[in-house]
């Protein structure tokens, strides 16, 4: 599955994703997130919710008691309930719908997991769709720990839980590999010595040269150069600086 950052020299793989029909006849391809990414996003969001709830509870309780004391009142009072308990509960239960609407299908957890919500038309879900999706958490979460939802996500083709089925939504990966993609390509060199994929790899390797271990960058550089020159990596006996210079010349199109 795609969706990883541009930190690899591997060429992007074909998406096993969801295709949305478009008016142009060219499908929009959306890489669908699986149970792992969903669970990861949920766990992050759950921790944020709990931390927010506790933070609200502590601050509101201190304000209510007027001293460094978190003790609950002996009998329930309107002030305690209205200031401490109710807003905290609202934060916990409205976290998902409010943030998903405000952040157009994302939450902090989803953002960290690199996923977002879309409709089956590839668009940002509407407010009713967000609300319906979240109402169905009541069913997805039974009997415990979202067991039913997880079973549904594992079994369904597009990895959707009941809430997604009801709202017509999908969780897809945010693409990251495109970021800076065009900066890696010098149109002038394409078609001369390098094809597009190799040109991208050379540019990427040169950009990351200093961050890589010396032995790794030499091995990668020799492998790439051997592929371009049509020889074996062992036959390239250039020093590290000469290897880098040669690759840079190829990328600029100045190499013969």
């Amino acid at each position, binding site marked *: 599955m*795609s969706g990883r950052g*541009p930190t690899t020299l591997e*060429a*992007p*793989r*074909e*998406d096993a994703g969801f295709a*949305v029909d*478009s008016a*142009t*006849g*060219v499908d*929009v*391809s*959306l890489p669908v997130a699986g149970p792992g990414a969903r669970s990861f996003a949920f766990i992050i969001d759950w921790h944020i919710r709990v931390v927010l709830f506790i933070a609200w509870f502590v601050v509101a309780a201190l304000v209510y008691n007027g001293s460094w004391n978190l003790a609950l009142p002996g*009998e*329930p*009072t*309107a002030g305690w*309930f*209205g200031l401490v308990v*109710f807003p905290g*509960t609202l934060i916990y239960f409205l976290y998902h719908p409010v943030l998903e609407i405000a952040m*157009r299908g994302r939450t902090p957890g989803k953002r960290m997991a690199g996923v977002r919500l*879309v409709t089956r*038309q*590839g*668009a*940002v879900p*509407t*407010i*009713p*769709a967000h*609300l*319906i999706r979240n*109402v*169905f958490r*009541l*069913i997805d979460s039974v009997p415990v720990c979202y067991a039913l939802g997880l079973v549904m996500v594992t079994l369904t083709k597009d990895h959707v839980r*009941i809430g997604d*089925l*009801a*709202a*017509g939504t999908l969780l897809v990966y945010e*693409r990251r*590999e*495109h970021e800076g*993609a*065009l900066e*890696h*390509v010098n*149109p002038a060199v*394409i*078609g001369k010595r390098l*094809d*597009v*994929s190799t040109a*991208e790899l050379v540019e990427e390797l040169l950009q990351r040269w200093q961050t890589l271990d010396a032995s790794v960058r030499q091995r990668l550089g020799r492998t790439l150069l051997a592929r371009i020159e049509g020889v074996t990596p062992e036959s390239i006996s250039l020093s590290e600086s000469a290897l880098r210079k040669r690759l840079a010349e190829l990328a600029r199109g100045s190499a013969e």
Partner: protein
Amino acid sequence: MTDALREQALRATLLQRSDLWKAAADRARRLMTGRTDKVSDAVRLVDDYRLLAHDLARARRLMPDSRVRSFLENAYAQAHATLYKQASHPGYALWSLFRDQIPEATRSIRSHIVWVLLLFVAALGAGAWMVHTYPELINLFASPSLIATVERGELWTEGLLNVVPSSVLSLQILTNNIVVSLFAYCAGFLFGLGTFYIVGLNGLMLGAVFAFTAQHGLDDDLFRFIVAHGCVELSVMVLSGAAGAAVGEALIRPTTPRRSQSFQQAALRTGKVLIACVVLLIGCGFIEGYISPDPSYPMWTRVVVGVGYWLFMVAMLRGWVFGRSRGTEAVEA
């Protein structure tokens, strides 16, 4: 010219357009995030969409494993999402929801409302008959403390305000009612059976408790407690159950070739009724917290509040509260 040379030339030609792709991606991003509302940008985006589709199709063939293709995939998906994004008019959408969409959704589940109401009434009668005929069966429906209180000749609601303030009581009640109502709706996913059980069980419990209090001469007091909030609360239970039943029916008898699509359509259509249910239950919670347990309110006040709020509910579900009149054309948000 060989095929390889021709493809190389095509790739080079395609890449010459990279500045146009960058501009298109940037424009789509700005329009999506609302950082521009220029008409010229929106018009350009339509051209961008065609350009990106054309070039993506070529890139998929000429350089399938390249990051250039990834860039185009992303830019095209973003342009598509931006073009198909609905205009955002929150105030108008809310008005349209209450004026047109909720009444339409309610009308679409009229038959379900009738059936769920019949189920509720039948369960209520069954519960009352069971406890009337076999009094010991009350143990199935009520907690031991409630039974003991009634057997002492008191209603469990007496002195409630001495224990819990009205505001706390209201919030506890409305939260509980909203959860039950939403659950009755969601349980419709089980081919309507979940909704059937929840509505039936609530009817049985209410009938049983009424019969039990009648055996101890407290049924008038219970009616007095319930009437102000119960008219709408029980109606909302039926309403959310009907919405759940409609969802269940969409799964049993799909209206589209695929069950999942039928389920989705029913859920999105009937889910609007739940918004009205939640709003109405908030009102019920406050009535149940402030008026129902307060002995200072006479019976006629309670009846007026109960019936008045029920009429308000009907007006709201018909859209009359928000200016809809008979024959009014529905408007799309």
